[in-house]
């Protein structure tokens, strides 16, 4: 009798393990560290020691660019479409971006502006995104157990996320935003009605990320953002140094540039 019991326990353990493995292998595994997906200064570092010159280039593969040819990427437009009554506000914010953009002053970029994750940990019932950002190093725990959004989440920059698979594409539905972040460059403000859908999938060894932004209070239509493609990375994540913005009093014009 005891042997039968042990046999049943062992069999159950094998079955459970099989279920877990099946859950993990049924979909592509997005786990891993991915290259830093922000626009960086397109400079290289020239090092000279005793006349020996070496040049260290940086990986800029994840820069804003044209990823439309990547399989699975949906057609996008460069800019969102705001309702006419908000166009002047967007222009004014954009014109004075170096003074009005919260990110310029160490603010959180939030979703979707932060872009693709730096690290993904894919588990059977949740997937975790980790980021490195000058405003701090946020993370997102994304349930994938079929549940709904939390009821009455506190407004936040990274929102309340739930994930599911659509074939080989990991789809993250994000709601519960505040209204104090921008969803992109050029004064792209939003309201607490913003709703974002992120899609992530593998293209060979690379990770592809594309987001769609809806905000019926200010936009005339959902904005499909240009996709970002990030390569696998080997360096570990590191705590971002604190952000201390001291340049504001020195700004003598409104020059600014592409960033997140």
């Amino acid at each position: 009798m005891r042997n039968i019991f042990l046999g049943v326990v062992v069999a159950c353990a094998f079955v459970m393990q099989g279920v877990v493995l099946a859950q993990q292998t049924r979909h592509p595994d997005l786990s891993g560290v991915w290259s830093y997906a922000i626009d960086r200064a397109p400079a290289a570092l020239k090092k000279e020691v005793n006349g020996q010159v070496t040049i260290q280039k940086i990986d800029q593969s994840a820069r804003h660019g044209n990823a439309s040819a990547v399989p699975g990427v949906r057609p996008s437009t460069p800019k969102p479409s705001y309702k006419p009554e908000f166009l002047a506000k967007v222009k004014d914010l954009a014109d004075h971006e170096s003074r009005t953009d919260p990110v310029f002053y160490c603010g959180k970029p939030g979703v979707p502006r932060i872009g693709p994750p730096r690290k993904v940990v894919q588990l059977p019932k949740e997937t975790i995104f980790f980021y490195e950002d000058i405003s701090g190093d946020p993370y997102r725990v994304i349930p994938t157990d079929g549940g709904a959004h939390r009821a009455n989440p506190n407004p936040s920059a990274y929102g309340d996320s739930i994930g599911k698979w659509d074939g080989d594409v990991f789809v993250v539905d994000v709601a519960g935003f505040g209204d104090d972040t921008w969803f992109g460059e050029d004064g792209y403000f939003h309201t607490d009605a913003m709703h974002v859908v992120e899609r992530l999938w593998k293209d060979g060894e690379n990770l592809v990320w594309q987001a769609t932004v809806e905000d019926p209070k200010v936009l005339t239509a959902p904005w499909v953002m240009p996709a970002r493609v990030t390569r696998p990375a080997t360096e570990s994540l590191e705590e971002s140094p604190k952000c201390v913005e001291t340049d504001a009093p020195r700004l003598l014009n409104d020059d600014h540039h592409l960033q997140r």
Partner: protein
Amino acid sequence: MLYSRPIGARSTSLKQTVSAVGLVVFAWLAAASLQAHHSPSAIFDMTKHVAVTGTLTRVNWINPHIVLEMEARGEGGKVQQWTFQSNPPSWYKSVGLARADFAKAIGQTITVEAVKARDGSLYGYMDKIKLPDGTSYELVNNAEPK
């Protein structure tokens, strides 16, 4: 000897002129895409290059720009407190440099080349640093070594 001087005050050999032009090009490119910030041209006169030699006093490894502080002597021997910012820590990490690579020179004489703040203050955007051991680091266009 601690001193600061405009790069233009150096002898004007063709090589140095080309170098200065290269700095302008670099600075403009850098201005196009630094992380989460204004353009350097909003603060710095991208045509006004200086080379400052002095004692490194502090390395502040912060976002959105690393900051180096230096004590140098200006004309007449007056002590000047210079501050230089440069690319973000994440950029330096990506090219394999850490705070320690600069901080090891604290208390020693270094030379920094930079573009100077438009407001006339002793503030610059560093694009080259030469350390006491002779090692130099320079931000250049993303080109292959010649």
